[in-house]
C-alpha cells in the first residue's frame, strides 16, 4: 500500500501548457523517496501540484486513500501532508516563535505549545533565537525553521523541495542528518533534490524526472551506480 500515489499527473501554470506531463510516483509509508532531475525538469512543479498549488489538468493524487485534488490546498497539512517549499519557506516578518506557533494554530493552544517546545528541543539553535524575526536567520537556520514548521504538526508525510539548496556541504550534512532522525521517528519523506549524491545516500528509492515525467526509477543503490544518471545531468534533459 502506498501512502502517496501520483498517477499520470499533468500540471502546469497555464492551461494547455503542462510542465508536468504524465508523471507517476509512489511513496510507501516510512520511505524516503527522492525526485531527481536537471534544472527545469519540472520537479518543483510536480511537488507543488501534489500540494495543490498549481493547476492540475488531469491525473490522480491520492494520499492515504484521500483524493487530494478534491481537497483545498490549505487543508492538506491538516490531512497530514506537510510541505517545505524550495525558497521563501519561512515568514520573514514573523519571529521564529511566531512562525512555529502559527504553524500549529489548528492544534489547539496546549498541544501547539507542547509541539513548539518539542521543536525547540529538536532544533536548539532555533530555541536560542526564538524572538528574532525569521528574516534575520542564516540560510541553514532558515531551512531548519522551515523543516521545524512542517514537523510541528506531526505530519504522516513531509515533502521537501531542495532542502540542500544554497547550503554549504557541512550544513547539507546537518539538514540531512535531521531528516534521517525524522524518518526514524516514523515520518515518510518525499524530497526533490539536485544534490544527487547526498539525496541518494539518504533515500531508499528515487525517481529521475526529465521533461515532466519520470525517466528512471529504482532503489537508491541501483540509481547511484547507473551510468545514465551522470549523462542525464551533464547533458541536460535531452536523451
Amino acid at each position: 500500500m502506498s501512502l502517496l500515489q501520483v498517477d499520470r499527473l499533468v500540471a502546469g501554470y497555464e492551461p494547455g501548457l503542462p510542465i508536468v506531463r504524465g508523471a507517476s510516483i509512489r511513496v510507501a509509508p516510512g520511505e524516503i523517496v527522492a525526485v531527481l532531475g536537471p534544472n527545469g525538469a519540472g520537479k518543483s512543479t510536480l511537488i507543488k501540484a501534489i500540494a495543490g498549488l498549481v493547476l492540475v489538468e488531469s491525473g490522480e493524487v491520492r494520499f492515504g486513500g484521500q483524493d487530494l485534488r478534491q481537497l483545498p490546498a490549505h487543508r492538506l497539512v491538516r490531512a497530514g501532508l506537510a510541505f517545505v517549499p524550495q525558497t521563501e519557506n519561512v515568514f520573514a516578518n514573523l519571529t521564529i516563535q511566531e512562525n512555529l506557533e502559527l504553524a500549529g494554530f489548528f492544534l489547539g493552544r496546549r498541544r501547539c505549545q507542547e509541539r513548539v517546545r518539542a521543536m525547540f528541543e529538536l532544533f536548539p539553535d532555533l530555541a536560542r533565537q526564538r524572538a528574532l524575526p525569521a528574516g534575520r536567520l542564516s540560510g541553514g537556520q532558515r531551512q531548519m525553521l522551515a523543516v521545524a514548521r512542517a514537523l510541528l504538526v506531526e505530519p504522516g508525510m513531509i515533502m521537501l523541495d531542495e532542502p540542500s539548496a544554497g547550503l554549504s556541504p557541512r550544513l547539507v550534512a546537518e539538514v540531512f542528518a535531521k531528516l534521517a532522525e525524522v524518518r526514524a521517528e516514523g515520518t515518510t519523506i518525499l524530497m526533490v533534490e539536485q544534490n544527487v549524491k547526498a539525496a541518494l545516500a539518504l533515500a531508499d528509492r528515487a525517481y529521475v524526472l526529465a521533461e515532466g515525467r519520470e525517466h528512471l526509477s529504482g532503489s537508491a543503490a541501483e540509481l547511484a551506480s547507473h551510468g545514465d544518471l551522470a549523462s542525464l545531468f551533464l547533458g541536460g534533459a535531452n536523451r
Partner: protein
Amino acid sequence: MILQQLADGLVLGSIIALGAIGLTLTYAILRFANFAHGEFVTFGAYLALLALGQFQVLSTTTFGPLSFGWPLLASLAAAILATAGLALLLDRLLFARLGRAGVAIAVVMGSFGAALALRNLLFFAFGGEPQYYSRAIQIALPLLPRSVLGGVRATPDQLAVLGVTALLVIAMHLFLSRATLGRAMRAVAHNPQLATVTGIDVAAVVRWTWIIGAGLAAVAGVFAGLTVQIRPTMGLDLLLPLFAAVILGGIGSPFGAVLGGLIVGIAESLAVPLVGAEYRAAVAFLLLILILLVRPTGLFGERG
C-alpha cells in the same frame, strides 16, 4: 497658537490614522491600492447618521459633557457592520473578479470607479449639504491657559475621539501580534502561498481584512462627522492624507500608518496659519512627494 494647532492636528491625525490602518492592511494583503477606501469612511459616517434616526428614540441623555449617548454608540456599531458588509460585497462583485484576471491596474481602476459610484450615490441620497449627529453646541474646555504658548482648548468630543483612537490602536497592535488571525494576516501579507501551505485559508483572511479595514474606516467616518461634519466628499478629502500616511509609515505597516496619520494630520494643521486653509490639502500631497523622493519604503516599510 502653536499648541492649539498641534492639538487640532492630533484629532485630525487620529481620524487619518484609523482610516490608514485599514488602507495599509488591504494594500498589504490584497496587493492593490483601494481608492474606494475613502468612500468606506463616508459610508460609515452616513450609515451611522441613518441608524441614529432609528436609535434616537432609545435615550436622549448624553454621556456627561459629550454631545452623544447610547444611540450614537449603537449607530456606530451598526455603521461598522454595514460598512464591513459593503466592503465584502464590493470584493465579491468587483475586486475578486478583476483580481482573477491577474491585471493589477484593473483592480485599482475598478476601485476608482467604485469610489465615484458610491460617492454619487451618497450625493443622490443625502444631498450635498453638511449634516451633523448633534445640533448641540459644545463648549471647548481650556486644557492649558492662554499664557502657555497661546493655550489649548478642546471639546469633550475631541478628547473622546483621541481616547478611543488610542484604545483602538493598542487593540490592533495586540491583535496583530498575539491573535492567531492577526498573525495569519501578517503571514498572508508576506507570502500567500506559504500561508496556504501552513494551513491558513487565505480567502478567509482576505474577508477578515475587508471587515477590519472597512470597520475602522467607518469609525474614522463617525469621528470625522462628530468633530467636523458629514458630507459626501469627506472621504474624498481624506483620500490623499490616507495614502500619504500609509506611504509615510511604510506600506503594510499598521504601526507606521498610525504614526504617518498623526504626522500628516499635524502637518496639515500647522500649515493652516502659514498657507491658509484653502491650501491645507496640498500639504498631504507635498508630504507624499517628499516621502517618495527621500524614502520610498516609508518609515517602517519592509518592501520597496
